[in-house]
């Protein structure tokens, strides 16, 4: 049986020849993401800004969004943010809490919305409702950001300990790249950014590092194997040697995640989309961001040779004199 080979044997692609333009493009994309976050803003969910969301399924084929907006608006609790989610007949309605300190009032708001919709659209169903106070949402936002920072730092430190400091810095930069672009995607598409998206980003931090590690592991091996090879050539060799694995693993991960995105529950669409995007970006960044940076950070073939200890140096001197 002839086996499928996505990547032919013994490729010799000069990935690093184009490192400067690739870096330029990536840094531009990172800046664009940051600019988008500040200009467009993120569509933050109630987890992070507080408020009330209600998930509603209509009996009709297509949700009457405009009508629902008018009916809810007429209740006088403020303007609803209505988004279509999942199926065409499902929407999510987001409201600000009328008064933080008066939970009875927000209860009445939910009841009023429910009753109005039930009266005007027979067969309407409330799938889920969630309300978060401003205080809690502030806390969730803070802990989310702390978790992201800790994960990036923790993993980079681990890489530093297992490899060398240049590799830790490389990993950290690649992670910053992946996370920035993913958040930029959310600013661009205005998909809702909530707690589960932070979890998705944490996940892709872990997984985008897989590729990094596999390549770094090979770089380390080759550095001790080919002591005389120039670094750019050696890095290219390492990327090429692991290329087949990188592609096969990314493909298999994306196959399963695509099934989840297309067939899975609508509730986690954004979550799955974030991870898929992150895996693409992560695969790219481990080849084009994390690897070339090793040249600029001055990795040499001596990086993994244990430095001569003081005792050994002493001994050598003594011997030399004798």
């Amino acid at each position, binding site marked *: 049986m002839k086996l499928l080979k996505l990547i032919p044997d013994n490729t010799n692609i000069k990935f690093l020849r184009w490192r400067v333009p690739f870096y330029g493009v990536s840094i531009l994309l990172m800046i664009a993401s940051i600019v988008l976050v500040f200009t467009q803003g993120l569509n933050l969910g109630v987890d992070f800004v507080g408020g009330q969301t209600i998930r509603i399924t209509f009996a009709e084929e297509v949700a009457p969004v405009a009508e629902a907006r008018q009916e809810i608006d007429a209740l006088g609790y403020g303007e609803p943010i209505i988004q279509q989610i999942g199926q065409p007949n499902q929407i999510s309605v987001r409201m600000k809490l009328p008064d933080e300190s008066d939970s009875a009032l927000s209860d009445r708001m939910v009841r009023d919305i429910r009753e109005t919709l039930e009266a005007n659209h027979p067969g309407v169903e409330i799938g*889920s409702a969630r309300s978060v106070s401003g205080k809690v949402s502030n806390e969730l936002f803070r802990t989310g950001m702390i978790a992201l920072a800790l994960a990036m730092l923790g993993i980079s430190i681990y890489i530093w300990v297992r490899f060398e400091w240049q590799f830790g810095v490389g990993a950290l930069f690649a992670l910053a790249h992946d996370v920035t672009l993913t958040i930029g995607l959310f600013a661009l598409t205005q998909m809702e950014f909530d707690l589960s998206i932070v979890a998705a980003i944490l996940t892709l931090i872990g997984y985008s590092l897989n590729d990094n590690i596999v390549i770094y592991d090979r770089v380390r091996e080759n550095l001790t194997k080919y002591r005389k090879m120039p670094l750019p050539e050696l890095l290219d060799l390492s990327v090429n040697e692991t290329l087949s694995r990188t592609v096969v693993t990314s493909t298999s991960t994306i196959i399963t995640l695509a099934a989840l995105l297309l067939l899975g*529950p609508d509730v986690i669409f954004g979550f799955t989309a974030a991870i898929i995007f992150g895996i693409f970006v992560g695969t790219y960044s481990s080849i084009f961001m994390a690897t070339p940076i090793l040249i600029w950070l001055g990795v040499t073939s001596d990086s993994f040779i244990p430095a001569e200890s003081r005792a050994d140096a002493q001994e050598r001197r003594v011997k030399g004199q004798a």
Partner: protein
Amino acid sequence: MLDFPPWKRLWLWGVSLFFALAAIPSLVTLAGLTWPSVLPQPMINLGLDLAGGSHLMLEADPRQVARQRLETMEESVRTALRDAEPRIRVGDFSTAGGRLSFMLEDPSQVDAARDVIEPLTTGAGLTGQRDWTIQVVDGNRFILTQTRAGLDLAVENAMEAATEVVRKRIDAMGTREPTIIREGPERIVVDVPGLKDPQALKDLLGQTAELEFKLVDQSALPSDVAQGIAPPGSEIVPGAPGSDYEGTQIAVRRLGGIRGDSLVRAQQTYDPQTNEPVVSITFDPQGGARFARLTSENVGKPFAIILDGQVISAPNINEPIIGGSAQISGNFTAETANQLAIALRSGALPVDLTVVEESSISAELGADSIEKGAIAIIVGLVALVLFMILTYGRFGLYTIAALVLNLFMILGVLALLGPLAALTLPGIAGLVLTLGTAVDANVLINERIREERARGRRVVAAVEAGYKESSSAIFDANITNVIAALIMFVFGTGPVRGFAVVLTIGIVTSVFTAVTMTRMWVAGWLRRKRPADIVL
């Protein structure tokens, strides 16, 4: 490396099957069949987002506890100084700024006053700190300040008691398997599976349920009362919304009333005459005696029944109530009367609790998520089977076998952990993700074997090198995932935690199946067939 003696094979298969079989009861149940009850039945616990249900986060305000402590302290100080021998006269009480301050009329009694007040404070915390500090300024002014440790301890005690009250109330509602846990110093999280509309639960928990019986001050002028001015010794209490007294004010005597904490029974019944829903209560013997005295001394006068600082009714005392039982009416529906009865039975909350986060998910949405999740897993798995077999042939088969075993083992571990680890919606995503990435270890190994073959190594040596040389990358890659998952577990809440748990379990089981089990299978095949070449 490739040597697997029979005992080792037996051991590895035993471990795999033990965990994999643990998943069967849950899968049978999810498929809508019944699992025979005579067999052991570890079940996967479904999170609220899959099972449907309500989640509430309740928060207490520590300032309220501080205020209560201040009031209690004022009472104790006044009583203690009055009862001291000789009596210590004081004046100019103030509780401004959260501190209790007062002045001695006779400065020479400073030491005597200190001796009386000091025993009112207690130790708080491990450092030997007291719960109040006592200062004397200007020779005769006492200032009592709450210490941080004292307040923390009081909040802690209040929350402990409040959690108990919440538990009693929810149990009385008859809902099944609620989870009630303290979170941080000031919060309680309540998860009730299967409860679609949390409104009743919120009403029940939102009630402090502090019941008081106080005499109505009939000497008060209606015009004064309307303006909120009470005669000395009395206070103004508003009527409760929904009662006959809504929108009115009533003056009641501050002292000489009875508090509802001496109840032994509270039940929703119907008034025999009006057939209106009422709550009938029974006092304990001391409370009953005090209630009998109050009612027999005040026949013909009205008294107010006050719930959480609002008058719900103010009937006339027609005759002394001796038996220790009474009825509370207040325009109740059967449901509100029942709620009040539950609240009274479980005792008053020591602090008010407000809902700061709430979510409810319908069981239908949860069931829909499970169904779609299962479809996604099956489709993803089938696609992956094809891809792996096309790419790695026989070695792809081993990879797939490991993957299926891995899936069962994750579910089995979840089932064995039971209530300790619920499967949530992100958890399903975690399962799918684990499927995709668990093959990574095998991909690394298989690619390495290919490389080693290309370099001209013999089959057995190439396979051995493949497993050996890829182990460091597999190990490092999995550790970074564990770091991410741990951080999610520590910082995340409910559903996200479920995701982190599945990821972590998946990492451990996938290394086991993808590295150890496939090596055993490959070794067995190599020994049996001794192939001179392998297709890879």
